[in-house]
């Protein structure tokens, strides 16, 4: 079987399109690369949607943590503490079994027990908490002069937030937020190891890499392939976020611009 044929059969296997049965023996390199790459679709799906939705909640939580209102401040602090203080791994398990229990009460919760929605919600809340903390830190380090200048120009309320505070907050938070995004994508690999079933063996990249490592008892091929895919994904993310960073910093003199430096913030 040629490699092109394999790509046609397994390229979209993780979505359930193409050949139904996974290869069982005589694994070729092509099959491993194709299937693991096919699994990356899930990683990108989880990461992108959680990041986009999480961005808005994170802004709200970051602002909430700095709010004067005690109720809002305390609830934001607890939200951040809850999701940053416990392992994502356990959060996945807990959410899955909680959704299972809810499912027994009402069929409305049926989709929540499958990975595409249930795991997405956990990732969304998790990244909102981590980015919320980043945004809160950025909010506190907005230069005093910027806000005073806004006041002097007669900005207040929503226009001040929209045109001065928020863009500055994003600009300051962006390097840290880039890391958060990268590690969110890495965290998506946990999904199918935490109770959420890979229905009809439609799993993510690590799910397939683990499948091959188990079957061939040779970790030295599938895991480096997975690593290659993730390094590629990381580079793409860095490029995308770098473009946004350029735009956020476009009003600054060249020397004062902060370039993106990839610093790690490790697993959660």
């Amino acid at each position: 079987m040629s490699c092109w044929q394999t790509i046609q059969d397994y390229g979209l296997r993780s979505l359930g399109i193409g050949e139904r049965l996974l290869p069982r023996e005589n694994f070729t390199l092509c099959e491993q690369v194709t299937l693991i790459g096919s699994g990356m679709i899930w990683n990108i799906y989880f990461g992108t949607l959680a990041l986009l939705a999480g961005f808005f909640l994170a802004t709200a939580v970051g602002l909430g943590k700095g709010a004067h209102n005690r109720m809002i401040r305390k609830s934001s602090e607890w939200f951040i503490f809850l999701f940053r203080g416990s392992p994502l791994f356990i959060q996945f398990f807990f959410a899955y079994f909680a959704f299972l229990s809810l499912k027994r009460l009402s069929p409305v919760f049926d989709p929540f027990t499958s990975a595409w929605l249930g795991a997405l919600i956990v990732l969304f809340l998790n990244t909102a908490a981590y980015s919320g903390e980043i945004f809160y830190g950025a909010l506190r380090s907005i230069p005093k002069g910027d806000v005073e200048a806004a006041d002097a120009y007669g900005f207040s309320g929503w226009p001040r937030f929209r045109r001065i505070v928020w863009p500055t907050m994003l600009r300051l938070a962006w390097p840290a937020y880039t890391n958060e995004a990268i590690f969110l994508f890495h965290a998506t690999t946990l999904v199918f190891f935490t109770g959420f079933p890979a229905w009809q063996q439609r799993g993510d990249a690590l799910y397939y890499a683990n499948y091959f490592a188990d079957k061939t008892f040779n970790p030295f091929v599938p895991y480096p392939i997975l690593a290659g895919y993730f390094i590629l994904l990381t580079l793409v993310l860095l490029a995308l976020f770098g473009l946004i960073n350029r735009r956020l910093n476009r009003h600054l003199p060249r020397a004062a611009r902060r370039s993106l430096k990839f610093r790690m913030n490790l697993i959660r």
Partner: protein
Amino acid sequence: MFSYCADPDTLSGLKWLSCYLTTGKHLSFYVSFGVVLLLLAITAPAALLFGFGGAAAARSRIWPVNWLGRIYIAIVRGVPDIAFFLFFVIALDQGFEWMRHQVLCPDWDQPIRRGNDFIVCAQAKLPLGNAPQWIHEVYGFFLAVLTFAIVFGAFAANVLFGAMRAVPHAQLETAEAYGMTRRQTFWRILVPQMWVYALPGLSNLWMVLIKATPLLFLLGVEDIVYWARELGGTANPRFTQYPHGDWRMWYFLALLVFYLGFTRVSELVLDRLMRKLSHGQATTGGEAQRKAAA
């Protein structure tokens, strides 16, 4: 455990719960919390050692050592850590068996990798086929610790490498001016001063390490996650004296609370340590303390 637990069918309410929570399996569950703490206690210093080695290597002037250190630090970035955990456990196991195979069975003429199998001679098996169960468990735990130490060692190396660069350069130049060799400068000037700079990064790392401990489950150790799944699942009255429905949600809630408490306590302790260490230091933290006291 308690004398009234002899006949669980007659119990109810709190009494039932107290008996239920002290069954043999639950005691293993509590012991597994100890396993987590033991893992942390062994891994943290081991990772620090690996990290120190990595950071020192990355500063070396001999280029192969330098490159080795830099690659070690760099490789963990960009790739999901969980992939490393899954990879190292098999890779280390096969690596050890392969080395023992080379030493113990030099006249073995068949290939080791045959199709989907990895076959070494019987004497090279780790642990030996006839070893008792506890050796298998200890070996599994040892592999897990080594894996954690390697992965977190790379993180620690990154932190320490940064801390070494944060030590004011004038200090090193002064040492050189006094005629110290590179080795002396490293051990007497650089290493004692870097810890203050490294502490924020290392305490962050400790938090991450705590939150990574449930990954032990993936490495095949019977840890808290394993027992929570095992004990929480629906208990059929035919197989157990304490039947109940699907309680896994509550078991994982308990784990969540355990981790939240653990990270909170660590946070408080590390804050206190940082305050102690920055006392009298020429950093903003130390300066703030001095002003507050005055």
